[in-house]
């Protein structure tokens, strides 16, 4: 195993829209920039590179970054911060020591999963998860797909899957028609969103779109055969091969929280130049508030300029981000989760998929910490990323402190001594 040391003026963690924008903006000012991302290619999730190649937005930015001399580190998972201004990341075979003066966190978001009987059956996936699988080479041609949950992601995924040959049987949105109508009115203020909406309407013509509807159970032996949905007060059985089910997005705030950045209502608190509560650490995109791709790009630009010391330039973009942030607030209100979704899980429904901990056992616990100690919920590889949002919604628990490694790492990696780090730290790490 090889250790590689790198030094940057500005290190960006996360190569999606916000991270790409941040790296690009910082690089305009001649500072040394590095960009690290866990995925095999740049683009994050919305611009995820698959068998069809890279998205033009990601490709163009990537070329710009390369010609500006930005060092791009794909397949790199940051898992610890052993001393100030040093992050360590693991790749497939090696260890990276990443030193920086300023840091931009652009770690994006993940889907929120909520439990219902049968949700662990193979071919029940996230909506974004199913799209990612198809982007990555699985042929969905002729397969019956049901999409359920909440959020604009459902429609984007529906359009994509249909264009790639899926037979979309239904889209079930848990929000009410009334909430969506109000959302539609708000969209009128954002011209580009109207265009997007029109295109979606065309792409999805003929697909049943049902509001105030949600999955109640998934059925199948080895793999999914059918889904029971609640619709208009009745239960309907829908035959399908795949269920893409996600309940909007949860910000990836683990690294920010670990570094001491203050969170407010689950999001990283930032000022008007995207600076967090920790000096020298900026945060852009979904971790500061779920707001979509345009907002992520502008926030990334602000953070990139600010991290490179160009605060006036960063400030000049603030009004643009404010306008886009209004759309973000509307998203939150429109796609709020209804209380019926808390009552779907049966006693034997799995909540913690890593450790197979069921709802019945967790219901008896009093807090996240107690549940962790008594049942191992949250102690598996996902480290609470899937079960945490569920227990927060079901029981109101919030996970306590974030401990390193903040992402699973190989024993071999954890045992590798670090250069220029105090020997005491290495011992301390072993005890955690």
């Amino acid at each position, binding site marked *: 195993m090889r250790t590689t040391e790198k030094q940057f003026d500005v290190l960006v963690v996360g190569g999606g829209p916000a991270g790409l924008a941040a790296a690009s903006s910082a690089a305009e000012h001649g500072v040394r920039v590095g960009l690290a991302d866990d*995925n095999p290619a740049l683009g994050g999730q919305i611009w995820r590179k698959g068998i069809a190649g890279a998205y033009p937005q990601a490709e163009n930015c990537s070329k710009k970054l390369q010609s500006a001399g930005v060092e791009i580190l794909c397949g790199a998972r940051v898992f610890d911060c052993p001393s100030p201004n040093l992050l360590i990341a693991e790749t497939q075979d090696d260890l990276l020591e990443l030193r920086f003066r300023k840091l931009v966190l652009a770690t994006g978001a993940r889907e929120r999963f909520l439990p219902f009987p049968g949700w*662990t059956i193979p071919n029940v996936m996230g909506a974004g998860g199913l799209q990612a*699988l198809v982007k990555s080479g699985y042929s969905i041609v002729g397969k019956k797909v049901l999409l359920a949950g909440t959020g604009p992601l459902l429609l984007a995924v529906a359009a994509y899957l249909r264009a790639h040959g899926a037979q979309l049987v239904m889209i079930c949105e848990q929000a009410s028609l009334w909430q969506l109508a109000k959302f539609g009115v708000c969209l009128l203020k954002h011209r580009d969103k109207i265009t997007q909406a029109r295109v979606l309407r065309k792409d999805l013509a003929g697909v049943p779109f049902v509001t105030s509807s949600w999955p109640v159970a998934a059925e199948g032996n080895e793999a999914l055969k059918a889904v029971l949905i609640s619709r208009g007060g009745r239960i309907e059985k829908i035959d399908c091969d795949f269920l893409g089910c996600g309940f909007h997005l949860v910000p990836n705030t683990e690294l920010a929280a670990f570094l001491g950045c203050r969170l407010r209502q689950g999001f990283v608190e930032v000022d008007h130049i995207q600076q967090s509560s920790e000096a020298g650490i900026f945060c852009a995109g979904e971790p500061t508030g779920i707001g979509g791709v345009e907002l992520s790009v502008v926030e990334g630009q602000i953070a990139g300029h600010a991290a490179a010391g160009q605060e006036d330039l960063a400030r000049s973009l603030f009004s643009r981000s404010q306008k886009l942030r209004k759309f973000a607030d509307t998203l939150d209100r429109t796609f709020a989760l209804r209380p019926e979704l808390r009552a779907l899980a049966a006693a034997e429904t799995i909540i913690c998929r890593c450790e197979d901990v069921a709802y019945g056992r967790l219901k008896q616990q009093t807090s996240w910490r107690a549940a962790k100690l008594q049942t191992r919920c949250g102690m598996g590889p996902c480290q609470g990323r899937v079960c945490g949002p569920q227990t927060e919604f079901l029981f109101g628990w919030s996970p306590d402190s974030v401990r390193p490694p903040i992402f699973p790492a190989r024993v071999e990696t954890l045992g590798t001594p670090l250069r220029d780090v105090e020997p005491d730290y290495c011992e301390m790490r072993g005890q955690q």
Partner: protein
Amino acid sequence: MPEEIMLTVNGQIVRMPPGATVAAAIATASAYCRSSVNGEPRTVLCGMGVCFECRTEIDGRPHQRSCQIVCSPGMKVNTQHL
């Protein structure tokens, strides 16, 4: 026409387009990535590398997140381990 990548999933030959992930190959082979603690079949959930439900053995290395690994020629994927 770009060349297909040939790999095996549980001994079965699977052909995937370049850039495809191992998770997509496993799904194409109608296999599942792993077995849960209680022995239930599990496969892709998040598709982006955070849930670890897609972890499987690739070329003898266990616990590889197959949704984040691109297929390469001759890869041997074995999903039958925990």
